[in-house]
């Protein structure tokens, strides 16, 4: 079983403290390619959550059988095999979902987040914790990619949720800015992703610096008194 504190620290690490995109700066390749709109970013993240949870549980269960010297090739073998199996199963059993998520699943093989978490966490921790770590790392990626995709879409084309009709046929994308908004191509192109990602990282650092400063101020009188 897992204690509440441990659960909290895993969740906190994944979603904020060790956020894959903002702190570890991992998996930029799919990040740039996919976050041209919010729906794509969310879909890629969902597929990643699934694969990270599975590879976490697989590697953590096998961790005592994997010699240290050859751990990387074995990890790659496990991750690649799992992704392929997930891809096949999705296609065969959940075909409607596969049509939507399918193009993102093979992209995950090339995503170093999976290998990084397997190496840094799953190889040293029990299966349950490794699964949770995978899920929360994915959740961290999910909100970051959703935010980045939403911003790029809004600045680049003035819409939000474009492509949602592919996932839910009844829903329509929102046109937030006036229809004659000329669009800003830069935001849609990869450099726009880099610039906005930089802004997001700066924002996160600012939030943390403020929190740290507040804590210091609260601690200061005590120090003066002592």
């Amino acid at each position: 079983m897992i204690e509440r504190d441990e659960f909290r620290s895993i969740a906190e690490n994944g979603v904020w403290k060790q956020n894959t995109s903002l702190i570890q700066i991992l998996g930029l390749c799919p990040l740039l390619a996919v976050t041209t709109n919010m729906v794509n970013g969310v879909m890629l993240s969902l597929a990643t959550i699934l694969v990270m949870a599975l590879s976490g549980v697989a590697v953590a269960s096998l961790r005592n059988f994997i010699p240290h010297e050859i751990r990387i090739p074995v990890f790659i073998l496990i991750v690649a095999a799992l992704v392929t199996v997930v891809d096949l199963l999705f296609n065969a059993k959940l075909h409607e979902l596969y049509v939507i998520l399918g193009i993102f699943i093979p992209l995950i093989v090339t995503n170093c987040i999976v290998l990084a978490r397997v190496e840094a966490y799953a190889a040293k921790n029990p299966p349950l914790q490794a699964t949770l770590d995978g899920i929360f790392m994915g959740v961290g990626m999910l909100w970051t990619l959703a935010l980045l995709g939403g911003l790029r879409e809004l600045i680049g084309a003035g819409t939000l949720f474009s492509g949602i009709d592919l996932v839910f046929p009844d829903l329509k994308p929102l046109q937030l800015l006036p229809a004659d908004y000329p669009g800003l191509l830069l935001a849609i192109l990869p450099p726009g992703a880099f610039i906005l990602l930089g802004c997001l990282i700066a924002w996160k650092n600012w939030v943390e610096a403020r929190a740290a400063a507040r804590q210091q101020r609260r601690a200061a009188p005590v120090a003066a008194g002592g």
Partner: protein
Amino acid sequence: MKKKDPTAVTMAARTAVILFVFVIIFTGLLAGAYLWTKPALEASAAEEKMKLIDEVLPRSAYDNELLKDTVMLPASPLLGNDEPTFAYRARKGSQPVALVLEAVAPDGYSGRIRLIVAIAVDGGIAGVRVTQHKETPGLGDYIDPKKDKNKVRPWITQFNGLTYAAVADKEWKVKKDGGRFDFVAGATVTPRAVVKAVRKATKYVAENQNDLYASK
């Protein structure tokens, strides 16, 4: 008795064996998943193909297993194919009904336009659909009925019922070039390419019809 430290050779041999075991296990897993999902994957690929064919030829028109009754078409300038493709032969009660084949228009505005054409045994076009194109969105993409603003009579349906023999060569053109086919002003390259490809495909079938239905 003290255990000896492993030498480099035994160490290497041991890790090699372990790695080998992992490779066997996970390759086995992959092979198992592949074999287990193969029938379902093939069925859904066939289903997708049938959905496409349904657009050009209704299922009520034939009663054979269309995807199994194929004939190979060698690369031909009339079809625009670089590699051999398959034609599907629709039959009803062993009587030939129609041929469904692929055609490529090599001269679209931006690259090739892939078409699927159904031609009835009397030579009449039963239907044409675009399966793949890169034409300008909002301009040349009206060749795809899903993008065509005219929902009542989409552009691509004007081929229906025509035969190669009944339309003179100079009529197989868009109206701008003196032919009989509509086009949308500002995007003539695209329909021109499609008309040409459909004409050549019907010509190919008209010339080879007997062989196509007869060959095994």
